[in-house]
């Protein structure tokens, strides 16, 4: 408890894009409820704070920490462990902390290749070809930056996690609902859900909330959305040959993407109890391919140009394989 009697709240940003932070702010005036019920103890994006302030706290002093981002370097890991120690409830917030998300896709490539892309490709102006060094000698002494790890890990692969709130980013109405629930617990009106619960999601998958008309599925060809002349606005995208991850993705987002004519990319992660998200998509999509002829099946599958990227766009770091082979062979993929 803080001096003013309000429980402490923290939010941290590891390997992620920052969208989750914006999503929290996106709940508009409801953010005031947070302020009314919590003292914000540590939230680097929103306020000034020092790691040493956190280190100085008692263990368990923070009641609730929303941690977003994956663990990609020494610093991420250090803070994850630190916040774990100082928080009573550590929540993996957003797709990166939950399942690796887009930063997790980097697990398909070795670090050298990542640096190559980041510092030596057309999008980067770096005429001298400078690469960051972990240690660098300057007149004032040696400066260091955190060591980068060969692969990204999710929060629960590094520390124990109490709750999960998925989404890239989590939808505002789901954040609001979680905040309401936490406040209700604070007021003694409700009990905490069992540890490990995934919060802010529905019990089923995106199709459950999708307004498109669904029929029996028989896929004769896959098409990429940019190659489709006209997308039928009524019919299930998968039935139109567009790879939509909706069937395998946890509901809770209100199926915004398919409603707008874009296939579900899968940011809410797997449904409850699912062990490997990509496997679910592979099994279901392959099951409804309408062919028994091996060559024809191959021809149909040729339409899925990027299987690893399509099925593991968000979930790679939390999948059974976790990485691609190249990331520890040290070879370019």
């Amino acid at each position: 408890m803080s001096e003013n009697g309000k429980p402490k709240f923290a939010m941290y940003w590891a390997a992620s894009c920052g969208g989750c932070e914006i999503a929290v702010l996106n709940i508009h005036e409801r953010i005031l409820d947070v302020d009314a019920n919590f003292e914000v103890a540590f939230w680097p994006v929103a306020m000034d704070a020092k790691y040493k302030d956190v280190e100085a706290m008692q263990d368990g002093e923070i009641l609730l920490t929303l941690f977003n981002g994956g663990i990609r370097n020494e610093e991420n890991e250090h803070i994850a462990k630190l916040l774990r120690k100082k928080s009573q409830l550590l929540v993996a917030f957003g797709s990166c902390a939950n399942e690796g998300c887009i930063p997790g896709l980097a697990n398909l490539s070795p670090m050298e290749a990542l640096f190559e892309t980041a510092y030596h490709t057309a999008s980067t102006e770096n005429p001298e070809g400078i690469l960051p060094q972990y240690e660098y000698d300057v007149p004032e002494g040696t400066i260091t930056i955190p060591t980068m790890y060969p692969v990204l890990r999710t929060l629960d692969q590094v520390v124990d996690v109490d709750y999960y709130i998925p989404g890239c980013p989590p939808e505002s109405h789901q954040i609001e609902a979680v905040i309401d629930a936490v406040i209700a617990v604070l007021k003694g009106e409700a009990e905490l859900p069992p540890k490990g619960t995934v919060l802010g999601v529905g019990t089923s998958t995106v199709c459950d909330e999708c307004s498109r008309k669904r029929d029996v599925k028989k896929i004769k060809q896959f098409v990429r959305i940019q190659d489709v002349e006209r997308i039928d606005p009524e019919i299930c995208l998968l039935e139109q040959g567009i790879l939509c991850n909706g069937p395998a993705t946890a509901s809770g987002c209100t199926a915004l993407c398919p409603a707008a004519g874009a296939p579900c990319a899968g940011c809410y992660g797997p449904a409850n109890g699912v062990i490997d998200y990509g496997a679910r998509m592979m099994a279901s999509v392959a099951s409804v391919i309408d062919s028994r002829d091996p060559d024809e099946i191959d021809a149909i599958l040729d339409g899925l140009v990027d299987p690893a990227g399509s099925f593991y766009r968000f979930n790679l770091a939390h999948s059974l394989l976790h990485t691609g082979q190249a990331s520890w062979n040290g070879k370019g993929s």
Partner: protein
Amino acid sequence: MTGEEAQTNGHRIGVYVCHCGTNIAGVVDVEHVSEWAKDALGDRGVVVGKDYKFMCSDLGQELIQKDIEREGLDRVVVAACSPHLHEKTFRNATERGGLNPYLCEMASIREQVSWVHTNKAIATEKAKAMISGAVERVKEHESLEPFRVPIEEATLIVGGGIAGIQSALEIANAGHPVYLVEREPSIGGHMAQFDKTFPTLDCSACILTPRMSEVGVHPNIELLTWSEVEKVEGYVGNFAVTIRKKASYVINEDCTGCGICWQKCPKKVIDDKFEVGLGYRKAIYTPFEQAVPKYPVIDHDNCTYFEKGSCKACEKFCPTEAINFEDEDEVITVNVGNIVLATGYDLFDARRIPQYGYGRLANVFTSLEFERMTNAAGPTDGDIVLRDGVTAPKSVGIVHCVGSRDRNFNNYCSSICCMQSLKFAHLVHERTGAEVFNFYIDIRTPAKEYDEFYQRVLDEGTRFVRGRVAEVTDAARLPGEEGKLIVQVEDTLAGQQRRIPVDMVILSAALEPRTDAYETAKKFGIACSANGWFTEKHPKLDPVATMTEGVFIAGCSTGPKDIPATVSQGSAAAARILSYIEMGELALEPVRATVIAEQCSGCRICNDLCPFNAISYDAETELSEINIALCQGCGTCVAACPAGAITGTGFSNEQVLAQIEGLLMLNVEPQPVAEPA
């Protein structure tokens, strides 16, 4: 929870390792393995580890029973032979000990370890891995109860050949109702077309027609000829079958079967069904004299009235006004508990082997044509003559294996052709005195009195030439061959190419699956082999059952067979069904899939995956559902559900994943890994 409890989940597992005499113990160090199970797997919940000479013996089973009672076991693992042999045995032992039988799991360390490996150390390690997998799996087992369904008393039999007739009579005589569906106007099937049956040379009609009449008048049999099954719904015990009764344009209630109509009918049609194109019938007809039922049908496509709008000779002459040109198809639905498919075979189209000349050379006949020709009621009144209808042949060549044992057509042996060809040889001898050549690859006579018949035909002077006929031609090389059919063959026993001129050639054509066998199989939810025959549940031990409970198969629809075997299968199918009817209800394996409604998104991925139509979609709730009575437990939908909303008992994700983990826990030495760059 302590660390140990986390691993064991509080389980108390007994592991029993069978010696199987020396079958396992000779290669696997069973004592070591049982000790290891108790010691090394203690922290994974194993509290008993024992080995015994024969686990499947009474004493071995008692060991399990007593340990369950004394040691409070809640799971049992038996490392022995294949579960296909003794899973039931050990489940029963587990049940007798007071546990649910499904809490027992077997590890196959005989068929998959001791019998296939020789190195003792390696075999012992692999046995451990198999047990480790079973231990992890059994923890995820659940108590299951068999699924029970009531059995409707009536039976549907599809196909009125001798197999269907036999089944129908057996069931009807036991006092239970039967619907017998036949798509031709009469029952009788191929057997009605034959003249004599081998090897006894009984007259086919003489032994068949009494059975046919019995079917016709049986109070428990509802005969639905000129009818076809359109749709099958439901599951064992409770099928709803939709049948189309084709319009016959004859009012059966008024028809006396007097035959005036077909005598008066002016339209002569080549009968390509019953007479296989060798004779004629009228546009209104019964296929043959002794047809059951006796009522004729009008062949719509060939009837002058339907073609031209006038004629109606049959109507004019019918003494009982039994003709109704306004007749229409009727669709009925019957409820039955079991189904027998006895849909028979088609004859191989001999035109597909052009070098045998059938269709081009007049005096090349198929086996079925020859059957009709020798039949006293057939188009030649039983005279064996050339296509000119009058000339008796002086020499006849009989070609075996036409379209059989030939990878260009059918790679199986049609099994009846040898005996049939021997019968033909005998009949030709008997009726014409002509010289007969039988051309064969092998003579296959493996049944009662069959080889004796071969001896008899040899004794009659039939000339046997061992060699598959290369060609039958009228292309004479020498003037002496002119006007003859020349059978060119290598006489493999003489090592010579021979050209044998004959007057008539009979092709013993292969038996093939019905051209619509695949559609029929799909309709009834059963499988066809690659060749197209219906697939048995087990080819040896359950030859008349199929993978779909309640659907049985008999006769040539499952593969070529002779009349005795066909009749046996008809009886066998009936016996299986009678025992189901007797039981009143059926206990089915509880390996089934279920949809967890709250997790189902109604995405409909699973909807078309079940060949047994167990999955349906409820448009109201927008959820998919599984009818567990129809489910056969294959697990395809479980694997396909993108939401993980379908679970399967007996082979749940948890069970399979735990077993994988268990199998890998004993990973042999970790392999050196290249250091990362």
